[in-house]
């Protein structure tokens, strides 16, 4: 959930009303937002870097507001204010309009060449004319781009935004891709020219930009945008050129968004222009720009598309659990920037979805907005009339019953991790990793998460090691799942519910563990015996001390092992006393 930070006083000025913190918190809640924190730049600096660094920092009050992840229209002060004013019915939602150049001139044009196909094939563009910036508006403009980059643009991988002072460049613009050695320009806020190759190493240490280098670093061609004079506008998704940078005095802005996902690029462009066209000479109008594709297709952006959905008042009432007239529902929706009207046929409502509400993709989103506007706290809570009989999962039911009786038998339950290192399930148990049927994790951050466990024993032995100071004997058990590769399953692996127990003392206590097996079998109502019962027979297993290991059979089927652990296993788990263990599969007893 993104957090938007706005200056309180600016916010109240724009809302035309002052609130107490509590009142504003309440307003946020009603609108489906959350006032997360009230702070200031100074407070943040003190918290993060200490008193000294914070000296002289601004103590202007900041509101940090949590915004739902897909509400890109609320990521800046302008959008928040607009949303709240419409919600409070102090303002009618503006209509965003794409216009042609004022004096009948040619629209700006961005030509995409086919070289971009391999690296970043999409681009859209638009122009904001005669905009008036103030310091605050300018900062908000930059901040919105950053917020969009972090959210809908997925850290610039899907979309990257470039904004330029149109009066410093001249179209038509070319979006192409070139080998990094052939790209050379003066990047934003640098004093000299660099090749793209040099830039990539320059930004290796840049705390902000280094996070984006990987997106194109290993590509043979880098995306690049030129104007008709060969001036570089930007090298997306890394950096803009210094030449076309915008300032407080910029009047006309050329906006380009390059992308790997065209839908997201269109939404991103719509967001930037709908939010900031407010400050244009003719508010909420945006000058269209032409984009020419390598195949000759020509599209005009921004799309600023309005869409109408028709749904019934009954649908909303039934899904939310309220009983409102169609007119009242239409009013609720209009307050959420979804201009709605009762169409006249029955209780049908025509809902218009503006370009700012890209998150509304289904009637269920409209239903949710109606619920927000109605107020979640005003909806009557009711119990579903769904009548069902509960069933336990047989495997879990068996597990629950066995756990109780294992504790009654004097063993204490451990709870260990399902992920561990390769070493835990192989080397330390004197096994070969290749023979474990282990599922391997491709991106572990540490060795603790290399594999899913194939047996419960390592977890129990690590629990013993962490509790060596406890009085002996230590008697532990765990009944839980291990994971094994299994070709017959759709995903190639399956869980297996195992019961494992260990006895750790000055003497190995094989008879104790053997006694536990007898008790478990008694609980499972399996009698001792070769055929229909259970029996154990001597076996060799590298984890166990030679001659001190037996395989356990139930109804003629092998279900596990018990025995005294090999001294090397004991040492490798940093233990010092003899230890006996039992490990069985409980699934055959279902």
């Amino acid at each position: 959930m993104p957090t938007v930070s706005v200056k309180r006083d600016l916010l109240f000025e724009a809302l035309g009303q002052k609130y107490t913190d509590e009142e504003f918190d309440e307003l946020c809640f009603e609108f489906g937002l959350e006032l997360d924190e009230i702070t200031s730049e100074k407070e943040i600096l003190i918290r993060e870097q200490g008193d000294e660094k914070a000296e002289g920092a601004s103590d202007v009050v900041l509101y940090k507001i949590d915004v739902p992840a897909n509400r890109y229209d609320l990521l800046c002060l302008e959008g928040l204010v607009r949303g709240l004013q419409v919600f409070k019915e102090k303002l009618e939602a503006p209509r965003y309009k794409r216009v042609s150049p004022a004096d009948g001139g040619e629209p700006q044009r961005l030509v995409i060449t086919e070289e971009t196909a391999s690296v970043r094939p999409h681009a859209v563009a638009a122009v904001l004319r005669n905009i008036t910036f103030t310091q605050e508006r300018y900062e908000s403009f930059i901040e919105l781009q950053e917020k969009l980059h972090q959210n809908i643009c997925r850290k610039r991988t899907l979309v990257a935004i470039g904004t330029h002072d149109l009066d410093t460049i001249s179209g038509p613009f070319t979006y192409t891709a070139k080998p990094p050695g052939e790209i050379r320009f003066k990047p934003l806020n640098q004093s000299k020219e660099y090749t793209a190759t040099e830039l990539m190493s320059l930004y290796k240490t840049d705390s902000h930009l280094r996070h984006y280098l990987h997106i194109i670093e290993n590509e043979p061609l880098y995306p690049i945008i030129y104007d008709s004079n060969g001036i570089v506008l930007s090298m997306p998704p890394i950096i803009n050129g210094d030449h076309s940078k915008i300032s407080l005095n910029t009047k006309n802005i050329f906006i380009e968004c390059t992308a790997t996902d065209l839908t997201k690029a269109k939404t991103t462009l719509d967001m930037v222009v709908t939010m900031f066209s407010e400050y244009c000479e003719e508010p909420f109008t945006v000058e269209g720009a032409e984009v020419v594709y390598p195949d000759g297709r020509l599209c005009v952006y921004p799309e600023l598309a309005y869409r109408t959905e028709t749904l019934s008042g009954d649908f909303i009432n039934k899904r939310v659990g309220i009983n409102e007239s169609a007119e009242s529902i239409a009013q609720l929706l209009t307050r959420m920037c979804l201009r709605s009207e009762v169409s006249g046929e029955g209780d049908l409502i025509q809902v218009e979805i503006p370009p700012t509400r890209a998150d509304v993709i289904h009637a269920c989103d409209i239903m949710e907005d109606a619920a927000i506007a109605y107020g979640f706290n005003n909806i009557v809570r009711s119990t579903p009339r769904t009548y069902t009989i509960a069933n336990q999962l047989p495997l879990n039911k068996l597990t629950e019953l066995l756990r109780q009786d294992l504790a009654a038998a004097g063993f204490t339950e451990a709870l260990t991790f399902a992920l561990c290192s390769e070493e835990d399930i192989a080397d330390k148990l004197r096994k070969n990793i290749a023979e474990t049927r282990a599922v391997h994790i491709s991106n572990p951050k540490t060795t603790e998460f290399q594999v899913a466990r194939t047996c419960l024993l390592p977890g129990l032995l690590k629990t013993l090691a962490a509790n060596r100071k406890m009085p002996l004997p230590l008697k532990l058990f765990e009944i839980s799942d291990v994971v094994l590769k299994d070709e017959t399953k759709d995903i190639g692996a399956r869980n297996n519910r195992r019961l494992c127990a260990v006895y750790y003392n000055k003497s190995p206590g094989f008879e104790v563990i053997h006694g536990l097996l007898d008790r478990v079998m008694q609980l499972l109502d399996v009698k001792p015996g070769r055929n229909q019962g259970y029996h154990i027979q001597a076996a060799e297993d590298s984890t166990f001390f030679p001659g001190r290991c037996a395989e356990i059979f139930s109804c003629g089927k092998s279900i596990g092992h018990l025995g005294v652990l090999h001294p090397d296993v004991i040492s490798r788990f940093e233990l010092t006393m003899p230890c006996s263990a039992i490990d069985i599969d409980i699934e055959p007893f279902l």
Partner: protein
Amino acid sequence: MADTGLLEALLRLLEKVDGGIDSQDVAADLGVDHQLIVGAVKSLQALGEVISAEQKSSKRWELTGEGREIAEQGSHEARVFNAIPDEGLPQNELMKMPSGKVGFSKAMSNKWIRLDKAHEGGPRVFKTVETIEDTVRDKLQLVQKGLSAKLEDKEKNELKKRKLLSEVTVKSYWITKGSSFSTTITKQETELTPEMIASGSWKEKKFKPYNFEAMGVAPDCGHLHPLMKVRTQFRQIFLEMGFTEMPTNNFIESSFWNFDSLFQPQQHPARDQHDTFFISDPALAHEFPQDYLERVKQVHSEGGYGSQGYKYDWKIEEAQKNLLRTHTTAVSARMLYKLAQQKFTPVKYFSIDRVFRNETLDATHLAEFHQIEGVVADYGLTLGNLMGILHQFFTKLGLKKWVEVGNSGVFRPEMLLPMGLPEGVSVIAWGLSLERPTMIKYGINNIRELVGHKVNLQMVYDSPICRLDS
């Protein structure tokens, strides 16, 4: 038990006094070691209210070994003086005496004797006075009689300096008569025995009182893990509410069931390497319900079922990627798909099992935790129903601020309709972690103190039973 004779002797002494007596004095009176008297006091105390004894400590002057020798035989200087006959004694002979050296110099400084160095036959010692007063011996004898108070501090310190006296701390008991004082001893029994029951002799016996202040002996037993005890209670709550348990015993899941089937787009940040554990072996899932997969692909890339879709290039390769499930909702998706393949009947499902996140670890986050999930599928479920059932669930938990610990919602039609569920069916669901409410309930701040191999078993041994609603 100390010797009965001694106990009775002590009691007889106590009988004679009005107030009480000091155990040291008893030792002196009976002429036995004080330790024996202490033993006797303890034995008598164990008999009940025969006596009462209060421990006290006092400081006392005592003769050292050398001090006792002097009290008996006289000071070294006196012994030297007495050894000299009127005709004197050769110095070398005098020096051979045990007290010679010290006695000679003290007697010299007392001016009791003189040394004639020029005497023929070698230096010779003569008395200078007729009689002497051995004050050192007198003082020590006073102390020996317990009359050290008659000496001045200065005198005592001087004798201490000469290592003839030492000050010791004496522990003793002030013994007084108890409420059932008697000079005869009845032996108390410690425990009731089968013989006493058989013979009825218990009726005549006195029994040693128990110390009810002491802790009992811990029972020899096993213990269930506290988090698993809480899991049992959550299962119980769901079962009481009529929810059926889902089969969540599949930690490995495909991206398809974990994300795509839930209408989670393929570029979603949750699908990033930084958030999810992907599997290198077996890397890919190889079997999907084909027609359903096509419908999922369509709703993502083009929309449908009344949805605009996400309008992106949906790739099977992305859906095939195996991972450690990031939520049990992957299982809910499988269950709902299965449900959709039959004639629809309303269901209530739950699960509590492990999920995995490749997150940065801190005091409240581990790479694996237990997720609790509840799902209800029926015709005509409303948001009011969702809030109603959540209220009931969290009331059973005894948690007031449930908003803080969980997530809830209505599954999107883009997820349900491609599965084949009927149009009017709504599915409401909620989820929370098992660890979080357990930590709140038991006041544990660090999750590592609750789960994993590093937990202190003492915590497991000591944890109380789990009653969520109290």
